[in-house]
C-alpha cells in the first residue's frame, strides 16, 4: 500500500474514533506541551537575560572593580566569605589610579549604593536605592533624561548637593508638580533636584525606577559608604576587546597597589556582566537537564498507552486484517498500515501538544512578567519525538498484525 494511502487510512481511523484516539495520545500530548512551553519560556528568559537583565544591571561592555563579587553564583563557603570580608575596600585612590592606568578609550564612574528614605514636603518614599557616583554613570547606564539634566563633571568634582531622581520616585514625591529646582531630603540633608531619568521599566516585576543618584563626593558620601572608599568602580569600553585590555590593566594596577606577590590571589574582584549570564546559564542548564527527564517520562507513558491501544486495535480489526490479506496485502503492507496509524496518532497528539504549548507560552507572556520566545527547534523536536514514540509503540502491535494467519484472521468474529 502506498504511503499516502496509509496516512489517509490512519487519519480516517483516528477521526472515526475521536474519543479513543484522544485518550490514547494524552501522554504524548502532555509531554510535547511541556516541552514546547518550558523551552519557550526558558528561551524567552535567555533572550531577556542577555538583552535586558545583564545590560540593565551592569551595562553593556562593562566591568566592575569590587571588594568581592556582588553576584554569588555558587554556594560560597563561610571560610571564603570570611576571607572576602577581610579584603581591603576600594579606596578613592584605587579608583583614580585604575582610571588613570587604563589606556583604551573608556568611561568610568564610582558607585556606592545604599537604601534610604527620601523626603519631600510631608511625603516619604521608603527604601529607595541611593547611588553615590560620578557624572559618567549616566552614560554608562545609557539613561535618557526625561526632565532637567544629569549632574555635571563640575558638580561631581566639587561634591555639590544635587540629585537626579528615578522616574517612579519623582512621581511619588512630586505627583504632577515640577520637581526641578526643589529640594528633597535624605537623612535631613537637602539635595536640589536637577533631573529625572526616563522610566527603565521593570525586570521580573521589580521597578527599575526607584532610585536617586547624587555625586559621590556630595554629603551623600556619609551614608553610602565608609570614608574615602567606594563599593565599586564601574568601567565601560567601546568593544569587548577593549574590555579585556581594560580588565587586564585594572588587575595589574590593583595588584601592584596592593603589593601582591605573583603567587598570591587577587584580594579584589573584577566582575563582568558575563558573570550574571553565567549564573543564568547555570539555571538554564538545570532546566534543560530536567526537561528531557520530565518529557521522556510522559512520552514513555504515552508510548505504552499507544502500544496498548494499537494492540486493542489489532485484536478488534483481526478480521479486517484477514480480509486485506486475502485481497493481496503482504506482511509489510499490514505492518506499514499499523505503524503509520500509530505514528500518525502520536504525531497528531504531538501536534495538539505543540499548539497547546505555544498557547501556554503566549498566555504566560501575556499575563506574567516572564517573557516567552518559541524555539523552532523545540517544535521540530516535538514532531520528531511524536513520530518516534508512535513508531516505537507501534512496532510490536504492527508486527503481530502482520504475522496473523489469514485463514484464522478472516474467520475471527
Amino acid at each position, binding site marked *: *500500500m*502506498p504511503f499516502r*494511502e496509509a496516512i489517509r487510512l490512519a487519519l*480516517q481511523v483516528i477521526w*472515526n474514533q475521536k474519543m479513543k484516539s484522544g485518550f490514547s495520545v494524552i501522554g504524548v500530548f502532555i509531554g510535547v506541551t511541556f516541552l514546547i512551553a518550558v523551552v519557550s519560556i526558558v528561551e524567552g528568559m535567555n533572550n531577556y537575560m542577555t538583552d535586558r537583565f545583564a545590560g540593565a544591571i551592569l551595562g553593556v561592555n562593562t566591568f566592575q572593580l569590587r571588594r568581592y563579587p556582588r553576584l554569588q553564583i555558587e554556594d560560597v563557603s563561610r571560610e571564603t566569605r570570611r576571607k572576602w570580608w577581610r579584603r581591603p575596600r576600594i579606596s578613592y585612590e584605587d579608583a583614580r589610579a585604575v582610571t588613570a592606568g587604563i589606556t583604551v578609550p573608556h568611561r568610568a564612574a564610582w558607585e556606592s549604593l545604599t537604601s534610604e528614605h527620601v523626603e519631600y514636603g510631608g511625603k516619604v518614599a521608603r527604601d529607595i536605592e541611593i547611588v553615590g557616583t560620578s557624572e559618567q554613570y549616566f552614560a554608562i547606564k545609557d539613561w535618557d533624561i526625561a526632565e532637567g539634566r544629569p549632574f555635571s563633571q563640575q558638580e561631581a568634582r566639587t561634591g555639590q548637593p544635587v540629585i537626579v531622581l528615578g522616574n517612579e520616585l519623582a512621581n511619588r514625591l512630586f505627583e504632577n508638580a515640577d520637581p526641578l529646582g526643589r529640594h528633597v531630603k535624605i537623612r535631613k540633608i537637602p539635595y536640589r533636584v536637577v533631573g529625572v531619568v526616563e522610566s527603565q521599566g521593570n525586570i521580573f516585576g521589580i521597578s527599575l525606577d526607584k532610585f536617586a543618584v547624587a555625586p559621590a563626593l556630595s554629603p551623600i558620601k556619609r551614608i553610602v559608604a565608609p570614608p574615602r572608599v567606594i563599593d565599586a568602580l564601574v568601567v565601560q569600553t567601546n568593544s569587548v576587546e577593549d574590555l579585556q585590555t581594560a580588565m587586564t590593566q585594572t588587575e595589574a594596577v590593583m595588584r601592584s597597589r596592593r603589593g601582591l606577590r605573583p603567587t598570591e590571589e587577587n584580594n579584589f574582584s573584577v566582575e563582568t556582566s558575563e558573570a550574571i549570564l553565567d549564573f543564568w546559564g547555570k539555571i538554564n542548564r538545570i532546566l534543560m537537564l530536567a526537561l528531557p527527564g520530565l518529557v521522556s517520562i510522559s512520552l514513555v507513558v504515552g508510548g505504552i498507552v499507544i502500544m496498548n491501544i494499537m494492540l486493542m486495535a489489532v485484536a478488534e480489526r483481526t*478480521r*479486517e486484517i*484477514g*480480509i*486485506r*490479506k*486475502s*485481497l*493481496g*496485502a*503482504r*506482511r*509489510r*503492507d499490514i505492518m506499514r498500515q499499523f505503524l503509520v496509524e500509530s505514528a500518525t496518532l502520536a504525531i497528531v497528539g504531538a501536534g495538539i501538544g505543540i499548539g497547546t504549548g505555544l498557547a501556554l507560552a503566549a498566555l504566560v507572556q501575556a499575563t506574567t512578567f516572564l517573557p516567552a520566545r518559541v524555539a523552532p527547534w523545540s517544535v521540530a523536536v516535538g514532531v520528531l519525538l511524536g513520530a518516534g514514540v508512535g513508531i516505537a509503540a507501534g512496532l510490536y502491535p504492527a508486527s503481530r498484525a502482520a504475522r496473523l494467519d*489469514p*485463514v484464522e484472521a*478472516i474467520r475471527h468474529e
Partner: protein
Amino acid sequence: MTRDGSLIRVSGLTREYRMGAETVHALRGVDMEIYRNEYVAIMGPSGSGKSTLMNIIGCLDTCTVGEYWLNGVEVSGVGDDELARIRNQEIGFVFQTFNLLPRATALHNVELPLIYAGVSAKIRRRCAAQALERVGLADRMQHRPNELSGGQRQRVAIARGLVNEPSILLADEPTGNLDSTTSAEIMGVFDGLHQQGQTVVMVTHERDIAARARRVITLLDGRVHSDTVREAA
C-alpha cells in the same frame, strides 16, 4: 481438454492440523485438475475438507505435503509475499459472510485489491467503478455495506473479486447468508460471469446451487469421492 488449458493442478495434497495432542487430517491426498473457463462446484459434508482445499487453492493456506500448480507455476513452497501476490493477481474471493470493510464505501471496498497491486488512484477508481457496473451496482458506489441489502453486499464482494481480472473466482458458500430469491439472483451473476469466460470454483453444500455448475467434485473425509462432468445441454 488439453494440458494447456489446465489452470489448477493438485496432486497428493495433504493438510494436517495439530489441535493440541491430536493431529487432524483435513486433506488426505487430493488429486484434481481444473481447466480454464470451467465452472466447478466442490461439495461435501462439513468436515470433508472442502474449506481447507478452498483455502489452499486460494493461497490463503499451504499444504503439508503435495504439489499445487497454478497457471503453470508451482505454488507449494513459495514465500509469504509471493502468496500474497498470487492472491492479489490470480485469485478473486467471494465469501459467505461477504467480508467487506464496514467503514469503507462500496467503491473503496472494490478498490482494495488494486491498492495492494500498486495501481494509481485514478485508474483504480475507474476499474472499481467498471467492476461495480458489471454486477449492476453503478448507482450504489458511495454506499457503505450497512446501507446495502445482502444481495447487494455480495455483488460488491463479487465486483471486488473481479476487479483484478483474476484467473479464478473462488466462492465459498456465496449464497449461504442469502434468501432463495437473492440466491438465485447471485447465482445468475456467477452464471453470467462464467458465460463471459470466467473460471469459477464454488464451494457449496446445496445441491441446487451445485447443479448450476458444469462439473461437481465431491469430497469425503479429505479425499475426492466423485468427480462428474455434465455435458452442456
